[in-house]
């Protein structure tokens, strides 16, 4: 059997199309890049994009339109913080399953909006501090364990956005209900996109 490398190398025999004119044509369109969510399927037509955006908004999966308009244009995309709130990828490392009873045991909890994301310095570094992501929130409401208008917490999750080289992360602008222990934000369902329903649960759990 041919070596795997050789199998992959055969791909060079496939003629790639010349897209140089196409990319400049697209670049010159005054297209609304707010749909560059990139974590979701990209629709080919603007009509589909509009439908998808409307659906997304209606579903309450992203921050509201007002917040989107207020956000920096390069990040309007969404404030998609699924890399932080989606616990499915780290289920094996979940210490506890999310329930209101377990939420009540977290040492801090707040409703906040992401204003800065600093990816890990080096995932292979022997220094654990270099392997974590720092996330700064503008706090809208503390339910427990803190005070002040902003807070920076850590997470072992890695941003899934496309702008890890110093640009604004796509998750900036996302409003979350966050909770955790010490300086670490907890995933696994303990941190979630803000909804009034879940905010009521946080308020009830923490008596706030």
């Amino acid at each position, binding site marked *: *059997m*041919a070596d*795997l*490398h050789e*199998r*992959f*190398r*055969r*791909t*060079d*025999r*496939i003629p*790639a*199309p010349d*897209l*140089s004119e*196409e*990319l*400049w044509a*697209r*670049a*010159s*369109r*005054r297209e*609304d*890049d*707010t749909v*560059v*969510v*990139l*974590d*979701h*399927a*990209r*629709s*080919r037509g603007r009509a589909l994009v509009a439908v998808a955006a409307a659906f997304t908004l209606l579903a309450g999966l992203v921050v509201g339109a007002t917040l989107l308009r207020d956000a920096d*244009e*390069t990040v*309007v995309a969404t404030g998609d913080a699924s*890399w932080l709130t989606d616990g499915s990828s780290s289920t094996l490392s979940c210490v506890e399953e999310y329930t209101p009873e377990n939420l009540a045991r977290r040492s801090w909890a707040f409703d906040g909006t992401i204003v800065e994301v600093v990816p890990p310095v080096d*995932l*292979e570094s022997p220094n654990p501090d270099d392997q974590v992501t720092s996330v700064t929130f503008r706090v809208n409401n503390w339910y427990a364990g803190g005070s002040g208008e902003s807070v920076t917490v850590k997470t072992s999750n*890695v*941003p*899934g*956005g*496309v*702008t*890890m*080289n*110093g*640009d604004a992360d796509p998750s900036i602008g996302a409003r979350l209900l966050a909770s955790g222990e010490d300086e670490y934000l907890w995933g696994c369902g303990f941190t979630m996109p803000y909804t009034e329903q879940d905010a009521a649960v946080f308020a009830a759990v923490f008596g706030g």
Partner: protein
Amino acid sequence: MQTAAVTPEVRDAFDRLYREHGDRLWRSLLLSTGRPEIASDATAEAFAQAIRRGDQIRDPLAWIWRAAFKIAAGELAAERRTVELVDEPIDPTLEPVADLLAALRRLTPHQRASITLHHYAGYPYREIARILGSSTSAVGVHIHRAKTLLRAALEDRDG
């Protein structure tokens, strides 16, 4: 979003970037998705969006690879919601890699992307993790499993 002003220098820079890296990116996306049309759309769209952002992006090439793989993954996921790809015939123009593409269909999207970026595009694990928004250890696991599955699939086909 405001389109950044495209000066002749910017145009030259992106033209050069596309000439030097466009084909490799397109072929990597082809292997990762099995779909020439998705590879073309993701490549063109990633470059176009990078051009619109202009100097807001510090490392355009790295940004383009990340964006292209995100776009392609989204499009492939959308297709999979309506079409079962496993038994679909492979485009005859892709004959030189037909067996590889067929074997790659047995892998998960992350496994396909990881092993393609490593074995075809030549990226180290750490850079693959950045492109895919994953961790280095996860990429290592994906590549290990992908190799095992690919070898088994290709041996089956080779008899």
